[in-house]
């Protein structure tokens, strides 16, 4: 009990200490967007007849006619009330856009991370058990290939093979086949919503749609996870407690899994946390290739057209996700290694 309490207190402290950082991100992004040379008003006033008057109308609508400190004050006040502004690009409030798109990104990233962990950890363990063997080299080759092929190449390749040539995959456009009726939105996670609605066909359609992008993303992150598992397993297998375990004649399975892996998993958790946050923000290429309506492609589109509000909202969201993921990693740490709570 005391252990869990200590973990929670630690998590709470970490959360409080991250608040100033979030505020900093907020102000910094705000300023950065305004320093960038593109003027959203000019870009969006791009009908064939848009002249000076239209540009002024849009500038006023965006509040860009006011002095910058005033704009910042208004922005902070709005964010405080949970209003992230309106996107010119989609015409929707940013928080609505992000709320709709974040589950799409999370669902994809979590699935990809799960696939990556399920394949990377055993790969890393197998490689560590027989260092410098053929298996080890095989794993290394696979990982290198995965990480050096950019995701849009592997994505297009998977589409070409599984959709275009074999016709096995559904068309790579979005989260669910366009002719399937989406379930009533409860959580925003289609896999969960379909189950809640009791629509198994729909659930299956969503799973099929998810497979190609998830594998594309997983391929890219298997490498760091497998490498770190291997390295930390090597240390762990060479340590004295494993030698002791061997000498008392414990089964091989027990030695490897219960003693070696449990001790080796800490760095893997850390890396998985970092990989997850990075994937969520940086999977823009996968989202583009598979027309996945996620937050990253949304932010990129907004950035290209200097649509301030969505970019600011996205950066704030990502910063918050990083904070949450770090907290989660802290908690998992405590569970995996009770000694960590003391530190």
């Amino acid at each position, binding site marked *: 009990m005391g252990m869990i309490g200590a973990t929670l207190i630690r998590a709470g402290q970490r959360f409080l200490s991250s608040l100033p950082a979030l505020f900093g991100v907020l102000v910094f992004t705000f300023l950065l967007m305004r320093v960038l*040379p*593109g*003027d*959203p008003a*000019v*870009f*969006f*006033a*791009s*009908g*064939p*007849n*848009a*002249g*000076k*008057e*239209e540009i002024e*109308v*849009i500038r006023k609508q965006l509040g860009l006619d006011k002095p910058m400190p005033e704009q910042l004050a208004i922005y902070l006040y709005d964010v405080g009330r949970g209003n992230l502004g309106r996107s*010119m*690009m*989609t*015409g*929707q409030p940013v928080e609505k*856009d992000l709320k*709709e798109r974040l589950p799409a990104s999370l669902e994809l990233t979590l699935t990809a991370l799960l696939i990556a*962990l*399920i*394949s990377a*950890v*055993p790969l890393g363990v197998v490689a560590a058990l027989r260092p410098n063997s053929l298996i080890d080299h095989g794993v290394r080759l696979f990982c290198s290939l995965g990480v050096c092929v950019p995701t849009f190449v592997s994505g*297009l390749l998977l*589409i*070409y093979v*599984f*959709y*275009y040539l*074999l*016709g096995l995959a*559904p*068309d*790579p*456009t*979005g989260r669910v086949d*366009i*002719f*399937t009726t989406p379930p009533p939105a409860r959580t925003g996670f289609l896999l969960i919503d379909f189950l809640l609605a009791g629509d198994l*066909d729909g659930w299956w*359609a969503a*799973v*099929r749609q998810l*497979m190609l992008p998830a594998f594309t993303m997983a391929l890219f992150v298997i490498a760091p996870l497998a490498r770190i598992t291997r390295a930390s397993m090597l240390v762990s297998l060479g340590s004295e407690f494993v030698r002791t375990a061997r000498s008392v004649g414990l089964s091989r399975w027990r030695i490897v*899994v219960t003693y070696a892996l449990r001790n080796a998993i800490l760095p893997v958790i850390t890396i998985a946390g970092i990989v997850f946050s990075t994937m969520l923000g940086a999977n823009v290429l996968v989202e*583009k*290739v598979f*027309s996945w*309506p996620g937050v990253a492609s949304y932010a990129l589109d907004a*950035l*290209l*057209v200097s649509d301030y509000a969505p970019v600011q909202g996205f950066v704030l969201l990502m910063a918050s996700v990083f904070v949450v993921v770090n907290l989660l990693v802290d908690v998992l740490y405590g569970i995996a290694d009770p000694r960590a709570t003391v530190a």
Partner: protein
Amino acid sequence: MSLLISRRLFPAAAALLAVTLAAPAARAQSRAETLRYVTGASVNTLDPNIPGSTREAFALSMSSYDRLVSFGRKQLNGKWVFDLDTITGELAESYAVSSDGLKITFKLRPDAKFHDGTPVTAEDVKWSLDRCVTAPVLGKAQLLTGSLTSADQFKVIDPLTFEVTLPRPDKLALPNLATVYPIIINSKLAKAHATADDPWALNWTKENEAGSGAYIVETFKPGEQAIAKRNEAWNRGSPDKPASFKRLIIQSVPEPATRANLVERGDADLVIDLQASDVQALEGKGKLKVISTPQYNAVTFISMNNKIPPFDNVNVRRAIAYALPYDDMFKAALFSRGSPMFGATWTDGKPPSGAYPIPQPVKFDLDKARGYLKDAGLPEGFSTTFSFNVGQASSAEPMAALVKESLEKIGIKVDIQKLPDAQMSTAINEKKLPFFTEGIVAWLPSTDYFYRNFYTGNQRWNYSSTDNAELEKIAQAARFEPDKAKYEAAGKELNAIHFDQMLQIPLWQPAQDAVMAPNLDGYVYQFTRQVDYRNLSRK
């Protein structure tokens, strides 16, 4: 424990990909009656008047809303294109222009109804057009070009008769009413959602549709898709029956290669924004129907700001015009898909036509270019930047490389700048770019319109920053010239000035490549450079 599971799962996960993908997809039966259109852009508002509307939003509004009148179609080199000179009634059953050209009277269709079942009346028309010229919307600047500027010009005669008064006869007044913006809105519905801050209900129409058009919007997810169903009561199409497709899906697919795959596999029916190389390949395979129409209301330029040295010197501009490897650029940028605006021969050096744009009598000739550069007093050349926007990169990037390579041969050192779209528009608007490539488009392409909008004033679309009193005078006078021969003569004069001063260099009119399922019929190239979904049917 968890590892035990993952160990067992590992081979399963490896097989998962193949297994999950092998199951047959559940297809709705109505596939044949559905038009699935995929695009790299997206619909961002249901009201095309909202500042920031995308072209896809324009296209959807053509189907969800009716206007008083619409353009007919004609054949141009064997392909159907919109016809500015044939204006047919849409919500108007008929219209009449008074003999002095100052009054246009519209008789509305008595059977026309909005999507909620209420009849369309002259009151709705008045409210909608008042809004178009009064509210802070895109329509204002457009209707201005047809002398429609004030609510006083619109009058309700009776519930089915509506009258427009003009300050002077303007041949663009009627065509303007057929453009995207003057949609006829269900005024009772819209007024119910108006607020004190927003008397014209712009915030509501942005996300809600209140029209009488051929399709009723069902789902609208900005950035993802819009789905509409057929309005069975609609009879404004040419044969007086509803649109052919029961359902319309407009889906955003950002990756061009994926769009090409979709249409080739038959999962999508129509796409108009593929990369030129993909179009070439698909056309070669011969499985799909490809209709390439030169965008005859658009031009791509190499523009020079006539006010920034050394481009303020006409001989420098001429030198550039003769130093461009046009054929290579055309091939590299567009796989020669379009109509070239170079390599013409003008007898006696006079423009053969008063139309705009017309092919220019320029060709790749480095010696001539060197001569002009010498006349300009810059025989050693100079350094400059050449800019294009990221959105155009697939065609502009190879072209920019060729421009750089070729100009280097006459001593002009070019630094290529690739700018994000918003940054490029800002720089153009602020007149900061000396040398760049951009395109223009006009919905109502007439010579005077092009010259008035793209060659006058200190505004964004005057890429060349042209400030030529004579040109301005001729173009303004031509606007209200009723005599066709005189208009043609004025057009020729304008074209002669353009070439003599080498204001900017027209390169080509890129083709609109519509790639579609072989059984799709009725595609017409529209002024919006988008698909009018109402035209299409399946054989």
